[in-house]
């Protein structure tokens, strides 16, 4: 039997998802019995040949990313978005809250408003797009593996299914199901909030490792975040930051978080204690319903 051919590449990401693939250790050797990686940052070939499966890590932030991504789509039968950046835009997507010019200025310090882009960008340093976009907004994506990074086991499960020609199935409820901390106040229908105040978890005198973070007054993204990470942060006594992105039943993470939290934690406290926007959209700004600042705002400077 011919091996399934695979190509992998990264766009605007941190390479963490590729590291997660390597973290399969011996399982990777086993997997390589069925697949052959023809091109990847790991192997010598960087040109993308025709393959069965392409794995793409990272969001689309530059003109170079667009070019690379379109090439991968052309050359592959199935394209898999690997990791939260590719699926939803990820951390770097937070730059969509600013105009491109503001971003350049903040990076290069001296930049003047009327500088031509060529000063900063060239063939080797591809020009920034106006906004960061998830892979799915540029090309058709056949399957998404969320996670920052995805668990090695998840990558394996998906690849094994694809090798067999099956549609992979990933769990899609919210993280509370994996967390297992005890809820008491949240299960009481009352007008009152479940906590008197909102506190940063660093300020907790003692972190109760058995009790729901929300009930301790700490903002936790778990309820508006997809399961699949085995709640490792929560088991390590740290609240969820939402890196798995929204569960598929929600349209977007930030607004959904507000819908839920507003009747759970004191809204006033949240406003003063937490960066509501930064928290809700930390990993998924480019896949929000309004994925960047108002385009009028953008146009006015162009």
């Amino acid at each position, binding site marked *: 039997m011919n091996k399934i051919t695979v190509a992998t590449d990264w766009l605007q990401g941190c390479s963490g998802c590729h590291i997660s693939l390597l973290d399969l250790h011996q399982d990777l050797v086993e997997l390589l019995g069925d697949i052959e990686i023809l091109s990847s940052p790991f192997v010598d070939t960087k040109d993308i040949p025709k393959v069965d499966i392409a794995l793409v890590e990272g969001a689309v932030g530059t003109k170079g990313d667009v070019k690379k991504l379109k090439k991968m789509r052309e050359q592959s039968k199935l394209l898999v978005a690997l990791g939260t950046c590719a699926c939803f835009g990820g951390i770097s997507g937070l730059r969509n*809250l600013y105009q491109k010019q503001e971003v350049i200025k903040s990076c290069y310090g001296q930049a003047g408003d009327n500088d031509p882009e060529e000063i900063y960008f060239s063939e080797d340093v591809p020009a920034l797009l106006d906004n960061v976009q998830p892979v799915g907004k540029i090309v058709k994506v056949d399957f998404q593996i969320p996670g920052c990074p995805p668990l090695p086991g998840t990558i394996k499960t998906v690849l094994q299914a694809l090798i067999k020609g099956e549609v992979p199935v990933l769990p*899609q*409820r*919210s*993280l*509370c*199901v994996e967390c297992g901390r005890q*809820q008491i*106040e*949240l*299960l*009481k*229908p*009352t*007008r009152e909030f*479940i906590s008197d105040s909102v506190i940063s978890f660093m300020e907790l005198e003692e972190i109760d490792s058995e009790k729901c973070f929300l009930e301790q007054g700490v903002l936790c993204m*778990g*309820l*508006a975040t997809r*399961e699949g990470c085995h709640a490792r942060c929560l088991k390590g006594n740290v609240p969820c930051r939402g890196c798995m992105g929204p*569960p*598929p*039943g*929600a*349209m*977007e993470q*930030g*607004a*959904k*978080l*507000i*819908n*839920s*939290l*507003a*009747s*759970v934690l004191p*809204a*006033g406290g*949240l*406003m003063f204690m937490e960066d*509501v*926007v930064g928290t*809700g*959209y930390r990993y998924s700004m480019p896949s*929000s*319903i*309004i994925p*960047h*600042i*108002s*385009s*009028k*705002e953008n146009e006015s400077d162009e």
Partner: protein
Amino acid sequence: MKVGLLFSTMNGLISRAIDVEQLAANYSNNCFVSVYENFFSIDEMQDLLKKIEDNSLDAVLLIGESPLAYRNRRSAEHLLERIEDLGINPNKIGFVNLNEQLALVHPGKTVYHFEKAKLMIDAEIMRLKEAEGLEVIPVAPRKTVAVIGATTTGYMAAQQLLRKNYTVHMIEKNEAEASDVTKSEDYLQPLKTFVFNHPNFNLHTDASINELYGYAGDYSLALSVDGSFRLLTIGAVIIADVSNLVLTRELQPLLHIDIDEQGYFRPKNLDTLSVYSSEPGIFLIPREAVGTGYMSAVADSAVLAVIELLDCQELRHKIAISETDTLLCSGCGTCVKTCLFHACKIDPAEKVSIIDAKRCKGCGSCVTACPAGARDLLTYPKQYLFNAVDILSQMQIQDSKILVFLCEGCGYQALDAAALKGVQYPIGVLPLKVRCGGTIDTQLILEAFHRGFDGVVICKCQDGHCSNITGNIDLDRRANLFREVLRSRRIDPDCMRIVDASQTDSNKCIEEILELYQALTTTGGGCNE
């Protein structure tokens, strides 16, 4: 699905703004269409029902009058019952209010009138397509009635019910002299003697109501009498002590029926349905009753309404909330926290939310609060609302466009009332009816701005008036946080307005809309994305 569009020109009223025949012709390729002068004339109603049957329609859209027109008149409600009898699910009957929301408020007859009518119809067709049929469960009506308040009218009602072989539980908060026949006025003594001697009469004094749940025909009423608990199963409730404001304030959060500006229970319609409350199994004896003759007349009216409800083999209860999608629900508990009707529970073994259909009012709080999107409101499915926003946003107009979310309980009624008073507003104001203004999903507001609306207005009930108890408070909390999201996208948060609408004071709602419109026009729609 075969949709029938039935147009009413309302005896020419609507034709003043739109060429109804031409509008109907627009849909004749894909839908069954028929135009009437007035649905309620005998001939036309017969014809309408016959056409629904002959064409074996699956869904019906009544275009012309406000849906309130059907709710406020028994005779008009009758049309809906007849349509349901023909096998059309209640959720597959739609309304497009071309009268109050178009013809009356936008004088003239321009291409914009036509386009707006078309979009309003398209949006409602979308609802009929997206909305699944409601599950209708048969209820065997219990011939037992609770009368709250040992008042004169209460005894009068009890007497009539007893005569008709109903069992009566009279519930009185005070340790009443009520039971002491000798202390009553002369004319009441024979009445009380009859009632007290009747084997089917039960008096609970010193009783307070803890909870009422269930639906018309089959309620459970939890009482504590003298420190001990009793659970009564009853078919309907009559409130006989409606002028008692203290009692009303205690009962309102338990009975979940509308109150008016002064805090009294509000009848469904003061003029036409004065003994009906906003809940189908709870009836009121109007408080204006003075003089024994009039008192017995209003008591009889309430009794007649109860008998009309319960004197049948089977009642139909419609369930408005969807089942939990177990593939999505993680049992996080948010729905339990937000449901003040105590209708949600978490199954600890399965870690999924379960709904108690007997307690659920279909308000949609849990749908909005659910962070995983595991639940949906069958009457206004999420997908429909998003599609409706998209459809309404297609209105081609130079001036500003405002989307107004109209709460069933307040805003919709307020805008209708304003229209009847002769108020006018710009054609770029596009209305969308929702179950409860308080349960607006912030994702929907984002979608509206995304689709090019310059402003969004949300109507919610005044404090203490929300039939979903905390819907209005939750909305304020959400909006406080959500403004930050709008600001982050550099959309002026002032372009989202929240109006305390009231059913009777329509001015406030309109004023707010006009003010926003004015602000948007002067800034050239600067709020737009």
